[in-house]
């Protein structure tokens, strides 16, 4: 008889019937030994390591869908991060402007020193007034020239300084609402030509920023919801690819957590990797934009500034990444594993 290479001759035909008795060397495992309880399995030191390794598998296998999803998360969080960056800087600009809150009192050209001092006293007597300064006509011309830029040549022609004295002061934040009353009162005093204050501008800008913030929040929410769906899709992909595995593990007596943990870790991994990518991208965008903004500022002669995201916002980014991954995972699990 030709030897049957497909059936190792040692075991099934010849040694098959005797080999099962060899299990005697392992008495704890005899046919009838009770299997471990759920708790014992799940608390076993290897459980989470195994689940995490299983979750990492598709990334290590360079699964296109997993890396794509990670990139998508990174991009979405980068958009969110860029938006935060804009808002943070717009807010800084606004509060700096609000802090300025300069009120300027223009005196008549014919004003007398007496009147100037009188007006200064009245202003000082009001609550919340700070940084009161008197601007002499000379100083005023310098400022006007700076403001007119290229056309300042016109002013060189003036034979006599046409500008009057003026007074500047700021108002403490809490008393800001009084500014318009104060402006009216001062405007009525003798020797005062007119009063201007930029509170109105600040209010308009604040309204614009509020709208931006609102639109941004709505858009970010939609964006993140879509990304959660994408994550959930990717995990659905894994679940479908492992549908047989899950069914078979169920039949072999695997616990719910044992089956689900790898998918949850998978979502979490995608989210965290995505967040890491987003931090990197946002950082790169920041430095790119920083150069451009400074350049632009120089070109238009304005001193622009750009701050990076504060730590709390960076934390929010990482948290959003993790949350996206987990929400995506649980969406898929509840739809495709508990049915």
């Amino acid at each position, binding site marked *: 008889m030709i030897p049957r290479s497909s059936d190792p001759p*040692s075991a099934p035909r010849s040694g098959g019937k005797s080999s099962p008795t*060899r299990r005697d060397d392992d008495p704890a495992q*005899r046919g*009838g030994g009770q299997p471990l309880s759920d708790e014992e399995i799940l608390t076993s030191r290897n459980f989470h390591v195994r689940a995490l390794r299983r979750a990492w598998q598709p990334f290590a296998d360079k699964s296109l869908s997993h890396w794509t999803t990670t990139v998508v998360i990174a991009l979405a969080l980068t958009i969110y991060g860029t938006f935060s960056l804009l808002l943070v800087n717009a807010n800084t600009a606004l509060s700096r402007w609000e802090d300025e809150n300069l009120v300027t009192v223009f005196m008549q050209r014919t004003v007398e020193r007496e009147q100037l001092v009188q007006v200064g006293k009245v202003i000082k007597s009001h609550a919340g007034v700070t940084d009161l300064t008197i601007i002499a006509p000379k100083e005023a011309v310098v400022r006007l020239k700076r403001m007119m830029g290229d056309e300042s040549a016109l002013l060189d022609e003036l034979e006599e300084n046409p500008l009057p004295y003026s007074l500047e002061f700021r108002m403490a934040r809490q008393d800001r609402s009084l500014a318009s009353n104060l402006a009216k009162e001062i405007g009525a005093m003798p020797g005062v030509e007119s009063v201007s204050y930029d509170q109105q501008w600040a209010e308009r800008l604040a309204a614009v920023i509020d709208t931006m913030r609102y639109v941004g929040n709505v858009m970010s929410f939609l964006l993140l919801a879509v990304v959660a769906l994408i994550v959930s899709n990717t995990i659905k992909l894994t679940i479908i690819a492992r549908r047989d595995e899950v069914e078979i593990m169920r*039949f072999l007596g695997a616990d719910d957590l044992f089956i689900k943990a790898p998918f949850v870790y998978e979502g979490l991994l995608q989210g965290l990797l995505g967040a890491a990518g987003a931090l990197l991208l946002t950082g790169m965008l920041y430095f790119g934009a920083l150069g451009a903004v400074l350049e632009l500022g120089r070109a238009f002669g304005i001193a622009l500034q750009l701050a990076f995201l504060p730590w709390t916002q960076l934390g929010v980014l990482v948290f959003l990444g993790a949350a996206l991954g987990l929400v995506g995972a649980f969406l898929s699990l509840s739809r495709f594993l508990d049915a």
Partner: protein
Amino acid sequence: MIQFHDVTLRYPTGYEALKKVSFSLPRGSFHFLTGHSGAGKSTVLRLIYRAALPTEGSVLVDGRSVAQLSRKQLPALRRGIGVIFQDFKLLYDRSVYDNVALAMEVAGHDPVRVPGQVRRALQNVGLLERMHQNPISLSGGEQQRLAIARATVNRPPLVIADEPTGNLDKEMGRHIIALFDTLHQQGTTLLVATHDLDLAAETGHPRIDMRDGGLIASSSLSSDGESLGEGA
């Protein structure tokens, strides 16, 4: 070990696959479950590991009604039963070895014990040399033997086999039955569904005979002293 009390199972299509089936298998027994294609053999087995629930009547395993097990208790029931599925249910994305090892992992066995026990189970069915191959590259009969190795690697107290020799030649079929006999001698309870009456007759183990969802009393069964319900 296993008790069926007037079990009826009507599938959602309205088809009555089991009709008031009653029988009881004591711990440590070895029974064959025979019957024509579509008689209800697989359905009986599915009820035991709760892949199906009875429409009427009750199924007890180890004295507990499987229908009343909570979601959390089900895995423990299944870890106590080694099932050889009619369609094998192997995983084709991992090696022969890993297929068997999965059953041990799921049951939470000490990792150091896994390799030795997996090798022994594979040797029992003559697949040790195929350990590193993918099951897709096994012949039909080899896959069937792999399913047998996986079901027995944890040495569960109860082994349920659905047509375990359908893809095996006579010689290999006899070898598998001999393997079951060894398990039986060590105290394992066995229930083996098959359409091969010759195979069942050869061994002398009691037979439960089915026809169209009901039982037909069998001489070898009554001689074994088992209580048997009437077929519909």
